[in-house]
């Protein structure tokens, strides 16, 4: 056996089915073995970044299935490995387990600036959970298993394995033995506490029973531990409303009467106002990032905070907790829901207050969505997403890119299926959607997957249409084409006196692009074309591209300006200013 064979044997043992990647000199031996072995479906991306997001799609989407898998991507040394960085940093920000394998130049020439040599471990170290460089074939299997353990245990994250070419080819020693059954990773410094301690839990229950105006926070940890159902029972039992982080969406039905929708910068009025007036925040699996809190010293000033979080370094990082529970969200909810001390209260006044918040923007939004057109007669993204939501009964999977369309998709799709929303959040990487959706579709083949991108983000990774074509991936691809980097344009409208610097943008003829890849295409310019186009996409077996011509001046509201507090929330569209920009 050689190093490369042990690598693949370990991947197979870990339930890996797909390998996403791109070959090159330093990884060729591994690719050769993949081909010979024939047990993995190899998917070539058109750029290594694509492979990282495809692998992320596999990890994110499969965790709620019977067959959870860790996404694996591979690249050659030097430029190949460097092209992985964005997707790895993105996985780290969003706590997505991922294994990235890079070929490295042979040990004999490492640190001589050999052809296509980069210090992969040095580059990756600050942007991933752990890095390894095995220096003997005998180490490889053990290293891979440790890598999977680290990637998936506690707060998940990406792990990089940089394997020199000669080690890939090296034969193991004669007496080499490895047994997964007896394998224990040697990580004396790696602790994690999945089970909640009794004492803080008791204090938490006391606070919950005593409070008047509580809000439950549903974060990524709820999705990650498949605890959506439990969270819903907890909310129903206590009659406490639930606000979601971007990554907590789809953990429970979006139209549940207790749902406040998304919180934070582009969150709903009801979520944000409820948080401002709350006397208790009960947060599960989240990290209170700046997009969630706004100005920290004004954040939820009158609230006690219960913070349930698997990563102890997140507790007290941004928001001081009253009760810290360093544990897994699922296990904590499981104990909480079953605890006889937990009491139910009707909380009529609080719910009445929340109803007031719900009304602040409801009429405006309804009117906008029903109108469906912007000032220049082009389509509104909210309307498109709302129609998609209705026509699919909120049951499909949505993979947005990054920008205004992402926030529209977060706000106006009525998520019904648990774990059906996959977005680049912490890093906000434009171009993530198309490759991520490919990975998602491969592990959720029986569900419909919508990749929604802006014209900007789509052009960042549209080469992955090649992968869609080659592997006949049945993706419903939507491009919301507003001719601008819309989200940045919105900031320019609101905070830069309408000067549109570096945001207007030409698109290619997407119809020609689609036909070059042999993918059906529809352009949607009027309201009456929306439903038939979506219907066609639903009925069609196979990929389709729908380009929607959208109004560039549409804004996503409310908005809490960056660094602002919840009192600075903008709920009314400002008067249109004179148009700037080149066009």
């Amino acid at each position, binding site marked *: 056996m050689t190093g490369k064979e042990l690598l693949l044997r370990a991947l197979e043992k870990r339930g890996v089915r797909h390998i996403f990647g791109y070959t090159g000199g330093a990884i060729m031996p591994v690719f050769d073995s993949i081909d010979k072995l024939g047990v993995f479906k190899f998917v070539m991306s058109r750029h290594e970044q694509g492979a990282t997001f495809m692998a992320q799609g596999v990890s994110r989407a499969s965790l709620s299935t019977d067959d959870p898998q860790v996404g694996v991507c591979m690249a050659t040394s030097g430029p190949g490995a460097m092209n992985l960085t964005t997707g790895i940093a993105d996985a780290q920000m969003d706590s997505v387990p991922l294994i990235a394998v890079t070929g490295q130049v042979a040990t004999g020439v490492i640190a001589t600036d050999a052809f296509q040599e980069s210090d992969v471990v040095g580059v990756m170290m600050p942007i991933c959970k752990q890095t390894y460089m095995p220096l003997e074939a005998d180490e490889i299997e053990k290293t891979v298993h440790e890598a999977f353990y680290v990637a998936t245990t506690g707060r998940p994250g990406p792990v990089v394995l940089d394997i020199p070419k000669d080690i890939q080819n090296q034969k193991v020693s004669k007496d080499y033995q490895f047994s997964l059954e007896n394998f224990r990773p040697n990580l004396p*410094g790696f602790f994690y506490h999945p089970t909640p301690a009794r004492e803080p839990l008791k204090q938490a229950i006391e606070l919950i029973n005593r409070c008047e105006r509580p809000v439950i926070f549903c974060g990524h940890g709820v999705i990650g531990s498949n605890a959506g159902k439990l969270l819903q029972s907890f909310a129903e039992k206590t009659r406490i409303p639930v606000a979601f982080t971007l990554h907590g969406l789809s953990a429970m039905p979006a139209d549940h009467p207790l749902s406040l929708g998304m919180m934070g910068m582009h969150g709903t009025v009801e979520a944000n106002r409820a948080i401002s007036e709350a006397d208790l925040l009960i947060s599960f699996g989240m990290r209170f990032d700046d997009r969630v809190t706004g100005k920290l010293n004004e954040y939820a000033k009158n609230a006690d905070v219960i913070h349930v979080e698997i990563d102890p370094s997140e507790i007290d990082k941004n928001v001081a907790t009253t009760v810290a529970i360093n544990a897994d969200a699922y296990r904590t909810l499981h104990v909480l829901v079953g605890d006889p001390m937990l009491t139910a209260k009707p909380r009529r006044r609080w719910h009445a207050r929340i109803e007031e918040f719900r009304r602040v923007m409801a009429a405006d939004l309804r009117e906008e969505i029903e109108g469906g057109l912007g000032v220049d007669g082009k389509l509104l993204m909210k309307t498109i997403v709302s129609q998609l939501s209705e026509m699919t009964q909120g049951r499909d999977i949505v993979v947005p890119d990054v920008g205004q369309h992402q926030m529209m998709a977060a706000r106006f799709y009525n998520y019904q299926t648990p774990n059906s929303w996959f977005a680049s959040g912490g890093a906000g990487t434009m171009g993530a959607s198309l490759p991520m959706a490919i990975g998602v579709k491969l592990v959720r083949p029986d569900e419909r997957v919508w990749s929604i991108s802006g014209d900007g983000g789509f052009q960042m990774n549209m080469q992955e249409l090649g992968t869609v074509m080659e592997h006949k991936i049945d993706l419903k691809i939507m491009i919301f084409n507003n001719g601008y980097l819309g989200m940045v344009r919105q900031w320019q409208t609101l905070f830069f006196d309408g000067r549109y610097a570096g945001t207007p943008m030409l698109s290619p003829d997407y119809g020609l692009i689609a036909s070059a890849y042999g993918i059906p295409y529809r352009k949607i310019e009027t309201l009456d074309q929306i439903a038939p186009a979506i219907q066609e996409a639903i009925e069609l077996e196979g990929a389709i591209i729908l380009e929607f011509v959208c109004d560039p001046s549409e804004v996503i509201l409310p908005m809490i300006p960056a660094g602002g507090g919840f009192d600075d929330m903008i709920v009314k569209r400002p008067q249109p200013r004179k148009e700037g920009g080149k066009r």
Partner: protein
Amino acid sequence: MRRRAILAYLLDSPGVLQKVSMLIRKKMYNVDTLTVCKSRKPGISRMTITLREDDEARVRQVIHQLEKFTEVISAKELDTEHSYWREAAIIKLEIDGAQLDALRGDYNFEILEHKNHDTHIIHIAGSTRRIDAFIAQLGEEHIVEISRTGVAALEK
């Protein structure tokens, strides 16, 4: 700003020092001193880092994030009340022998070598403040070269 000492036990494996120093840089500190040595357990090193910070919460953050590294077994702050902080210095001096002898009463140092009648190499150990005081009393102008170890700390 207050000087803080953080004591960490970590695996003696390549790259760990880089991780620790990268974290400290990311948190926008300048390392005051950093010392590493073997611990009593084979394969585990002992690291003492000093940096300047007044905010307790930020220090706790650094410690939590250090602990997050799989290689870090434990990390905690050592305060001056409950621990000893010491460092050592080797100093090459150009000074009159008699002048050096006059300091003997106040400071405990060892003369490693008389290079010639007015060049000496000495070794001194003690608290940072003690060594600073020694240097001040000696007069910076007499120092040809100085090597200080940085702080080693131990809980009482």
